[in-house]
């Protein structure tokens, strides 16, 4: 019975998925109804997740661990899902006949990721990883019309399967050197044998799979096309929710080497620097807002990695915090995008012109989101960066902090350009004022408050993340 309680959130999302599966069998689609269902279900899901956030225990022959770490990420996943569901009210990007499937796949994907963050056994990890990927493979090409965007689906798929191939091969090597598939035992076993090439190569290849999900350089190559190609809601989902899971898994696996391999750390440092720099530099020249955010997400992956590569609880905690902050800020940006481009087209930067007139509230949310991403206080983004760099410097990587800050300055340039579009530019043609319903108002205010609150009063959250990080060791 208690096991059942431990598994409750996942079970709930399974039920939700099933429900939408049934809906998808119906002849007459009813988008509004589906949306209402989706919001309610996901909201309940969130509540359940939160309620069960302090449970601990093992399931399925110790393949499945429920602890603070996993539960925090589950909460984040559920939260992201709720938000995406919330913003799916006008799902113009997707044919209304496919709405049910869309919700179904989203639920499945969230479920898979929830399982991912709690599973501590290689096969389980692989399976749930694949499950989430498959649903995303299907979600991305769902975009209606837009033939020129279709190729992004193919690219996403090909790159995805390749990197999953890497991953399973890496897992096989780990299995070979560790003689077990249980992560806790691996953590004990690996540091001893980490100097064997097989072990470290296996670890790297395994991580590659997660890097792919996190869109870390050089596994980022799908990100720009997918962000641009997928419908706004799906992009939002990929940009926010699936990042959480990836971050969680990298944190779990980076710990495997137990810090016994300086080489691995070097590799991670190189990757994080490359990722930050590449993402920011290429973002400078983007015109399409979603594509720009794709590159910025690549850069942010680099920042998260800085926290992780310290391989100590403080660093992991900061990474978790950063992930959470990133979820909030990124969503507040995307929400505004979805509102502004309510017919589901791809928003160009210049289309934001005069946003401050069309809807001051959205403009403010947007601004705070951007400044958060740029890491300007007093937003959550700043505090996240601060914690990450603090961890790095504390470990002795001063140069990482400097490079990170320089990158932050570069990134500020393009965030300011977007900000300028929203606040300064006179619109070329007169756009209508944006209809903002009550829920959106509430949502924007919630987001603004969260951004500021996390930025100024990080105390509880930080201590929570540290408690979570400690469970990994």
């Amino acid at each position: 019975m208690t096991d059942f309680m431990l598994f409750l959130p996942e079970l709930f999302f399974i039920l939700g998925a099933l429900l939408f599966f049934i809906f998808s069998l119906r002849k007459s689609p009813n988008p509004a109804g589906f949306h209402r269902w989706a919001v309610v279900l996901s909201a309940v899901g969130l509540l359940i997740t939160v309620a069960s956030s302090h449970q601990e225990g093992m399931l399925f022959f110790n393949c499945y661990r429920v602890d603070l770490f996993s539960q925090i990420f589950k909460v984040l996943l559920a939260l992201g899902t709720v938000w995406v569901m919330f913003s799916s009210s006008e799902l113009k990007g997707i044919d209304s006949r496919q709405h049910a499937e869309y919700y179904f796949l989203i639920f499945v994907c969230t479920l898979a990721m929830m399982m991912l963050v709690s599973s501590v056994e290689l096969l389980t990890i692989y399976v749930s990883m694949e499950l989430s990927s498959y649903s995303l493979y299907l979600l991305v090409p769902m975009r209606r019309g837009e033939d020129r965007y279709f190729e992004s689906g193919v690219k996403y798929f090909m790159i995805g399967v390749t990197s999953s191939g890497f991953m399973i091969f890496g897992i096989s090597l780990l299995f070979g050197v560790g003689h077990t598939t249980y992560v806790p035992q691996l953590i004990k076993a690996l540091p001893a044998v980490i100097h064997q090439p097989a072990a470290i190569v296996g670890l790297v290849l395994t991580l590659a799979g997660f890097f792919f999900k996190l869109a870390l350089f050089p596994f980022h190559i799908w990100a720009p096309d997918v962000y641009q190609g997928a419908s706004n809601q799906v992009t939002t989902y990929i940009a926010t929710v699936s990042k959480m899971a990836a971050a969680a898994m990298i944190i779990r696996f980076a710990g495997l080497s137990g810090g016994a391999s300086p080489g691995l750390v070097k590799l991670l440092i190189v990757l994080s620097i490359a990722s930050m720099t590449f993402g920011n530099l290429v973002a400078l020249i983007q015109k399409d807002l979603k594509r720009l955010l794709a590159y910025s997400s690549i850069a942010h992956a680099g920042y998260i990695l800085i926290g992780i590569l310290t391989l100590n609880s403080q660093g992991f905690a900061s990474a978790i915090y950063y992930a959470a902050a990133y979820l909030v800020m990124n969503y507040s940006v995307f929400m505004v995008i979805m509102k502004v481009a309510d017919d589901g087209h791809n928003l160009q930067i210049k289309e934001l012109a005069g946003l401050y007139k069309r809807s001051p509230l959205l403009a403010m949310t947007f601004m705070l989101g951007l400044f958060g991403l740029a890491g300007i206080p007093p937003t959550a983004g700043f505090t996240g960066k601060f914690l990450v760099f603090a961890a790095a410097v504390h470990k002795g990587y001063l140069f990482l902090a400097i490079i990170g800050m320089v990158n932050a300055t570069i990134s500020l340039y393009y965030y300011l350009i977007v900000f300028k579009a929203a606040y300064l530019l006179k619109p070329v043609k007169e756009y209508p004022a944006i209809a903002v319903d009550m829920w959106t108002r509430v949502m924007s205010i919630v987001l603004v408050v969260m951004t500021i609150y996390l930025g100024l009063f990080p105390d509880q959250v930080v201590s929570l993340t540290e408690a979570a990080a400690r469970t990994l060791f």
Partner: protein
Amino acid sequence: MNSLSTYLIISALLFSLGLLGILQRRNLIGMLISVELLLNAANLNFMAYNRFLVSDPVTGQVITLFVMGLAAAEAAIGLSIILALYRKMHSINIEAAQKMKG
């Protein structure tokens, strides 16, 4: 000739072949097949390790079965996407899909 390393080398070869195929084939189907090679290389690893090193003989085989299953699913999804692409672009050549860049 029946040592672990033999199998490992073979799987490594498989893996490299698969990789080569992915990078070199322009035909999407071909790429998909090469991906299967990657997975099979992994499978071979699992079996080999399982046979030579690991105490509990089940694990590897179970994993292999799982991977096969997933591979099948993957193929299904992949083929469906390729089909859709063919419908839109009348080609299953990856070169047809390189408009998005920069």
